[in-house]
């Protein structure tokens, strides 16, 4: 299997802290990777670096063997679903408009309908985005991420503010994209149970990478799970 993502010795230093310390891992094509870690573990920094939003790192990030610092086209292979879709609530754009913004080739207009149908939101296509519920919005942003047929889908903790029914639907969509369409998925989440259910690989991040491997291995190792839970719990208590 091809390497979809290859991260080598990734280090990000901010004036006060080291956000990521010598992180290296490989994601094979077709993998479903769940990235877990407490708040402040460096997940956002890792994502920002992979998405080209943070370029102040040392080490290398490669998508399909292409170094993202040297490539001008690597963004074409990735689709990104943000944590919270941020936009002005009265922004005059329909669901189709939003998906169209991401569309690379104007001639692929029919892809917009295709991807909206695939996510069961075709009937919303002429609705203004400010009128949608959290679950609907989430699917719109997945549709937007999928419209250029990316090989890798990157999702940033994307289930905040979505009800259970929509979360289940979202999970089944992800599963299908991964197993049927062969899209490599990288998904950061706080929800250990969901990661256990969906992902076949886990990366456990807390500034350094303290586990990366098959999710079965992680979840069958009580010591590891406990360690993670403790780290997460301390962080949790620290925050409250």
């Amino acid at each position, binding site marked *: 299997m091809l390497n979809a993502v290859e991260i080598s010795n990734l280090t990000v230093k901010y004036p006060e802290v080291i956000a990521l310390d010598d992180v290296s891992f490989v994601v094979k094509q077709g993998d479903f990777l769940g990235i877990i870690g407490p708040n402040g573990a460096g997940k956002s920094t890792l994502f920002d670096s992979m998405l080209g939003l943070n370029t102040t790192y040392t080490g290398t990030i490669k998508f399909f063997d292409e170094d993202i610092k040297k490539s001008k086209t690597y963004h074409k292979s990735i689709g990104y679903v943000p944590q919270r879709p941020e936009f002005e609530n009265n922004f*005059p754009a329909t669901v189709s408009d939003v998906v169209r*913004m991401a569309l690379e080739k104007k001639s692929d207009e029919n892809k917009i309908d295709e991807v909206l149908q695939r996510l069961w939101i075709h009937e919303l296509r002429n609705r203004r985005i400010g009128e949608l519920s959290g679950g609907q919005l989430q699917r719109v942003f997945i549709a937007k991420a999928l419209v250029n047929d990316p090989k890798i889908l990157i999702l940033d903790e994307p289930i905040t503010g979505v009800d259970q029914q929509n979360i289940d639907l979202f999970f089944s969509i992800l599963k299908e994209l991964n197993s049927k369409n062969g899209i490599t998925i990288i998904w950061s989440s706080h929800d250990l149970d969901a990661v256990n259910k969906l992902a076949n690989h886990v990366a456990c991040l807390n500034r350094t990478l303290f586990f990366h491997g098959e999710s079965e291995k992680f979840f069958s190792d009580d010591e590891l799970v406990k360690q993670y839970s403790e780290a997460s719990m301390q962080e949790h208590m620290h925050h409250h």
Partner: protein
Amino acid sequence: MSFEVLTYGFMQRAILTGAIIAILSSVIGLFLVLRRYSLFGDALAHSSFGGIALGLFAGVYPLWTAYGVSILSALIITKIKTRYNISGDASIAVLLSSGIAAGLVIISFSGGFTLDIFSFLFGSILLVSVNDTVVIAALAGAILMVILLFFRQILYSTFNEKQAKVSGIPVEKINYLLIILAGLTVVTSIQLVGVLLISALFVIPNVTAIMYGRSFKQTMFISMSFSVLSVVSGILISYVFDITPAGTIVIFSVALLAITMGIKSAGLLSKN
């Protein structure tokens, strides 16, 4: 009023030129309003006042110096904003007052206010020549063409800069492009309503249209229509009452906004 007024050459030129400027400023204005840059047009207009004064003082055609100063200010304000982390509204306030101040100093040196200055402050659409109309039409055509060419990129980075960046759009360059286009549009619009009322052309039709429009293109089209309607009606009303068109144009567009707000309050518009 009889339709005879429409046979006058100056009136035809005023309406044609006014309509072109109306379309141009509403298109650029929609992006600015959605980026929370509503007062940016105002700031550029005030700074271009400095440019106009400079032109009059140096004996150069004032709009050319205004174009230069306006674009330069647009670039400086953007740079200052990002470099020194000054908020958008504060940097606009700085630009706005420094433009007028520079203008005043230059005017004082050149012997005080003249008729020319007033025509730039309040517009002089009834005085446009055939030559002016041709230049404005060509410039508007070029600006709209650039917008059409980069439409997706400008819209996407207006919607969400971060996501646009992730999709490979060179957001900083697109922002500079939009700001330069705004600078050009502001100076072009000065002849219609003058330095003091430009932001009205940029903002009011768009604020109105956003309440009606569903899709982005629909909103843009509604805004252009309101803008052209306001300009043409404003010019005709000003002729009837023999008053300055800048005022009637802006008051007409404010009236459209007020009516829209009334309709919305009555629950006849279901938008958020």
